[in-house]
């Protein structure tokens, strides 16, 4: 009965602490974070690790991964479709902006409309790549998406004529806000405009996702994830529901891609390999599948640990005389350990969604009983 209880609790819970929908609290939280993070960066010990500018630059880069994790969370966490080729949509978003605003095509479409275009193009590809996989389930879906994730960078790599091959597309235009606040083009030397931009994008995305989660579509995703057959017999159109999950997930990756290529000012096919997909997946799993703020926090923590944390561990190791240790090499070992341990010990993630926690900790009492018998016999 507890799953039913979970549903009841969920629909009956007070929506926000400020009334209305969650958007206002998200806005306030975002403003607080935006102000706090750069301030924290100036305090010891963080101030010792880099200048405030470096930190803010790092936060802007982390934002890209937060967006990726948020989008992947829609596909994996909400709809329960394991997508291992998510980086493909990131790549498509990035190349879309590269085509829209670089010397390679000669076009000069501004960043802001391209943000929407990138999201739409990625969403279109999400539907195109998602459509053939609709009949597949679980791990087959994972493998097909993994295949797509491998094909897309290969296509970008090998179609020299259209993508400039290995060298990628360079000289991609920076965003501009036309002199408001005295800022024209965003520069490489000043990370602040990028930081603000990505925070705004993330805030909007998070608001929309919270609304989606509680919407008819969001509930349809959950139903689909729990039991596709039952969902279908309750009148949920599984085809459109799944395709919308792919499209919305992909569009978020598209946003991330556009921002990424404008900040880096170049795109190369090797930035979109399977490691990106798997990193985003690790972030979603660690943060807590299905929980929007948990996933965002997970992505931020993982990103900062991997960029700053490992670097500081190195400095520390070198300071105590371990000159040969380089912790940055152990990044994937740590990811791997984290994934395995997380699944074994805390499968709901660091910040689980309420529903997931109930599912994982209340229902399996009977399963555990039946599972305990054979293993007990062997262990003895």
């Amino acid at each position, binding site marked *: *009965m*507890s*799953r039913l209880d979970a549903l009841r609790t969920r629909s009956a819970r007070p929506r926000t602490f400020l009334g209305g929908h969650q958007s206002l609290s998200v806005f306030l939280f975002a403003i607080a974070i935006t102000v706090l993070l750069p301030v924290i960066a100036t305090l010891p010990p963080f101030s010792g690790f880099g200048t405030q500018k470096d930190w803010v630059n790092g936060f802007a880069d982390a934002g890209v991964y937060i967006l990726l994790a948020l989008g992947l969370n829609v596909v994996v966490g909400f709809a*329960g479709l*394991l997508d291992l080729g998510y980086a493909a949509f990131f790549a498509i978003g990035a190349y879309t902006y590269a085509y829209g605003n670089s010397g390679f095509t000669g076009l000069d479409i501004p960043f802001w409309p391209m943000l929407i275009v990138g999201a739409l193009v990625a969403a279109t590809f999400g539907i195109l790549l998602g459509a*053939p*996989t609709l*009949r*597949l*389930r*679980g*791990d*087959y879906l*994972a*493998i*097909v998406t*993994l*295949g*797509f994730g*491998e*094909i897309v960078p*290969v*296509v970008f*790599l*090998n179609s020299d004529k259209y993508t400039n091959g290995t060298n990628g597309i360079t000289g991609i235009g920076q965003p501009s806000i036309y002199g408001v606040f005295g800022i024209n083009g965003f520069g490489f030397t000043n990370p602040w405009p990028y930081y603000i931009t990505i925070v705004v994008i993330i805030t909007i995305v998070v608001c929309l996702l919270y609304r989606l989660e509680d919407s008819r579509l969001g509930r349809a995703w959950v139903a689909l994830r729990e*039991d*596709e057959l039952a969902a279908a017999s309750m009148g949920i159109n*599984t085809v459109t529901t799944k395709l919308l999950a792919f499209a919305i997930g992909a569009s978020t990756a598209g946003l991330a891609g556009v921002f990424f290529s404008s900040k880096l000012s170049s795109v190369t096919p090797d930035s979109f390999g*399977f490691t990106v997909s*798997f990193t985003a*997946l690790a972030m979603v*799993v660690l943060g807590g599948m299905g929980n929007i703020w948990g996933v965002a926090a997970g992505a931020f923590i993982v990103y900062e640990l991997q960029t700053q944390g490992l670097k500081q561990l190195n400095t520390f190791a070198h300071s105590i005389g371990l000159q040969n240790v380089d912790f940055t*090499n*152990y*990044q*994937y*070992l740590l*990811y*791997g*350990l*984290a*994934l*395995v341990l997380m*699944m*074994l010990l805390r*499968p709901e993630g660091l910040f689980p969604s309420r529903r997931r926690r109930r599912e994982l900790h209340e*229902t*399996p009492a*009977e*399963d*555990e009983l*039946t*599972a305990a018998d*054979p*293993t007990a016999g*062997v262990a003895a």
Partner: protein
Amino acid sequence: MTTAVQEPSRTARISIDRRWNTPIGVAIALVVAYLLLVIAAGPQAQDQFINALTIGGVYALIALGYTMVYGIIELINFSHGEIFMVGSFVCWWLLTTLGFSGAITDPLVLIPVLVLTFVVSMAVMGVVGVVIERLAYRPLRNAPRLAPLITAIGVSFILQNLVFVGISNSIVTIPQIIPNPELHIGPINIRLINLFVIVLAVSLMFALQMFISRTKLGRAMRSTAIDREAAQIMGVNVNSTIALTFFIGSALAGAAGVVQGLYFGVTVFNIGFQNGLKAFTAAVLGGIGNITGAAIGGFVIGFIEVLASAFGYGRWSEAAVFATLVLVLVFRPTGILGQQLADRA
């Protein structure tokens, strides 16, 4: 009440193809592949044909592990490709530790060294596979299906990173101990190494077929794959049977790793991912759970790659393999041998 939801009936099972028309189909496919190679490569067709069989043998050996593990516990063992990679490093380690650097011409030395390399690598990788199963997969056997899949990805990261940090972060050269004369058997010119690899791969596959179809343990494996609980009631030790499946699958991947080392002479820490994915494609192509199918699928992938190169699209060969995977899963998820129903929603 939540347990009232019935498990969908199990669909992928460890099986062996026994239909009379399969060998005929394979023969026709081989002839077609040869003709295509004649069109694409002209005088090099024969070399390319042998090359495809050799590469295909490696993929087939890896694919067997995927198909067995999927057949028995319905898990895509993502770390399997890394087992293959570590196997190639075991081969490198053994040969360099023994102090070999080039071809061994004396067969009295060569044969024991080869046997030793294969036995050590297969045993080590088999044990590694069993340990991984025990630590990372067994505790999650009753968890949601996503959970072991994610641990499998984690294990694959761990293995890859350990080799990257512990052994080498770049390409490693493996001594080419098999001498390289070209043999002329009738009209066929074949290098010794190719002959060795093809014969070895095919005989390992036959040994596995025999094991699964004729021995008691093989029967235990098949029955566990069909219905774990029923098998347990009939006195099969399910846990050790699953462990045995991992041992055999990983040992075959270890053998494939040695073949990789001996044939290509190089290995690198990230070789396992792509090769693993291709081998998985092979397993799906042959119909997952079907041992014969995985073997045939491996050779098909070998031919797809070689044909792509022969037609001048070498850079697209990987994309061709993955496109095959997607197309097969979408249009014929039961694989080319197509006797089981694959898991479709």
